[in-house]
């Protein structure tokens, strides 16, 4: 079948404003949108700029707006976003991050927030044997949070970031939750200075946009709420108030 990719493009040569360019591509309905992009890139227009690597949804390189929704181009089949021969698929860069060129965005701030969440094991326990002993139930508590591939789809979809660009954002909270709920880690305490602040977990208003778009099916909103609850519990136990209430 044939489809048209309507790509929102932007580069310095053509000036700072975005413009749309259309490419007609022959595809199979079961091809990935990324395959169609590669076809254009290799055979029609080598200036088309986008990131990609693994091609099966595990590296997080190619999140973009496909028909106005955050998706990975390699995890979206043509048949998922078209109905018939000749249909148009729109492609645009993610939101809430500066566009570098065409579909490439600058994830610098996104990763700064990720790093701020201290996404590494903090512990002063020694493993009781050569390995830490952790029950299957304990392991399960943070399993979902380990699946994040830093694709930024959630960061683009989050309506809170429209208003408040300083909000820590869904992915960084997921990164923190990955350790907060790990029995081997000191958990919340070393991360309170990031999470329990006015721009930490509290701006989240439960829109669920992040959860809907996450290509790894992480229950992000749930993890944010669990983290909030953990903070409240921690503060209450010490007779303190959480930043939310301040």
């Amino acid at each position, binding site marked *: 079948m044939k489809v048209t990719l309507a790509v929102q493009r932007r580069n310095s040569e053509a000036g700072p404003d975005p413009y749309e360019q259309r490419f007609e591509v022959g595809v199979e309905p079961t091809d990935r949108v990324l395959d169609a992009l590669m076809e254009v890139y290799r055979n029609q227009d080598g200036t088309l700029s986008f990131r990609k*690597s*693994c091609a099966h949804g595990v590296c997080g390189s190619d999140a973009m707006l496909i028909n106005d929704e955050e998706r990975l181009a390699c995890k979206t089949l043509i048949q998922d976003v078209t109905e018939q021969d000749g249909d148009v698929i729109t492609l645009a860069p993610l939101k809430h991050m500066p566009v570098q060129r065409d579909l490439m965005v600058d994830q610098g701030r996104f990763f700064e927030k990720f790093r701020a969440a201290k996404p590494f094991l903090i512990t002063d326990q020694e493993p009781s044997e050569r390995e830490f002993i952790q029950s299957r139930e304990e392991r399960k508590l943070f399993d979902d949070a380990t699946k994040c591939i830093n694709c930024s789809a959630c960061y683009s979809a989050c309506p809170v970031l429209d208003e408040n660009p300083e909000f820590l954002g869904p992915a960084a909270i997921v990164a923190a939750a990955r350790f907060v709920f790990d029995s081997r880690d000191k958990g919340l305490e070393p991360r309170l200075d990031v999470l329990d602040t006015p721009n930490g977990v509290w701006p989240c208003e439960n829109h669920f946009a992040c959860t809907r778009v996450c290509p790894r099916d992480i229950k992000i909103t749930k993890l944010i709420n669990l983290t909030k609850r953990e903070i409240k519990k921690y503060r209450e136990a010490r007779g303190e108030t959480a930043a939310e209430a301040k």
Partner: protein
Amino acid sequence: MIHEFDAVIVGAGGAGLYAALEASKTAKTAVISKLYPTRSHTGAAQGGIGAALGNVDEDNPEWHAFDTIKGGDYLVDQQAAKILAEEAVQAVYDLENRGLPFSRTPEGRIDQRRFGGHTRNFGEAPVHRSCYAADRTGNMILQTLYQQCIKNQVHFFDEFQVLELLLDGTRVTGVVVFELAGGEVHVFKAKAVLFATGGFGRMFRITSNAHANTGDGPAVVMRAGIPLEDMEFFQFHPTGIKGMGILITEGVRGEGGILLNSGGERFMQRYAPTLLDLAPRDMVSRAIMTEIQAGRGVRGDRKIDDYVMLDAGHLGREVVESKIPDIADFCKTYLAIDPAEQPMPVQPTAHYAMGGIPTDTDGRVVTADTLYEGLYAAGECACVSVHGANRLGTNSLVDLVVFGRRAGRHIAEYVTGADMPSVPADAGEAVRLRIAELKSRRGEHPGPVYEKMQSTMMENVGVYRDEERMSTGVADIQALREAFKSVRVQDKESRFNTEVLAILELENLLDLSLITAASALNRTESRGAHSRVDYAERDDHQWLKHTLAAIERGAVTITYKPVDTSIWEPKPRTY
């Protein structure tokens, strides 16, 4: 721009990151990576990392070393395999202690599963040796190592791509690097350089490898005059998703999944009566191709793209969802099937390069007679050689952490006693001119050359080989290297010019394809993944030796290096 570091690590997958963690303990270290580190293909590894912890069954490193050597059809350097198996155990504990979320046994220990070719007591029966985190083990390794690098404030240059190695005689002096964002060419001067650039499966049409797996490290090193080892040995993993090549981990068979032909027969019973579906990959891939050629593939048309079925339905939903959740997700996304209910259509997919940059067990680059001072390689781009003619599943992740760490440690020590080399005043100029020349060419889009390379390699240098096909492969690739001269870079911009890099990557793949095809044609025997219809037997008398190959003046020249067989005498390989 000129930078100066004690150590430059090229690549931020498992091997590069582990080396960086060790090297940065004493050395001023830069990690240069063309991808943002967590996008590296180590993140795609699914099934597990092999180590004889003995958490589920009795096990010991000696059995692991033996399986590795036998699995590699005796082309493995045996002392290196011993190091691999012995150090694997502590490496896995170290990863766990640093936060790696392994799946757990009911007692809360690191859980282990069975994997192809890993056995108890020198081949008696499959053993639970693969330590795993669901089917996301590589992602968890990559994340854990990157997390440690963040913690230790390792210095990263993300989206910087190495294009040239600088040597002064046999001593390393630095690398020339292209920065994607600004389009600038940088020179990194360094006492030590380690290549950890991963695999190059993209030379084949059906592959489990990422778009970024273009073999830049081996190609750049080879162009500096250093030959590559055992490039004819490329592994085809038996179970890639039909038509796409996306990997279905061997862990599915480790958990009890079975392969079926069009008649619903468990055909591995005929090929490997003891290990069955858990025989080593080269054997299972050949068995599938033999079934297909006999008309017992699902379509039955005997074409090389026919396929067989992998059935996991009898494992039950609980096992599928807890042990192979990502596989279930891939099947849903790409095939619209549920593996707890329906079998998966699979075919061999180009997966892993056993060959690469020749090193010793400290990661130092050495050929038969030359040691390159300050130059190191680790991970899939290197050839230690612990995988010989065929790698066992789970042994690459071990290779990354064991030899990444050893190389990093050696670098940490080496740089304390070495002086900073100097680089020529015009370093980087050749690369600048090359890029300008590519941009000024009139010519063709790269697509047709890319596609032809991938299809000729798939058809002519695939699972089964013979003289006629491989000769065709060599001739095709030579013609494509000519055609490449009229491929142009359309993108004239300097900012975020991905096309310049993509075209240089294609050139790397073409060079490595030529070396692979020519080394294969040269080896007149069958061993491990190199299986010739016209020379069906292994020939230890003539061929128990490593190939070293390079391109000189447009043609491939080949020399050899001995194999270390100091522990176990080579025996026929049956399972």
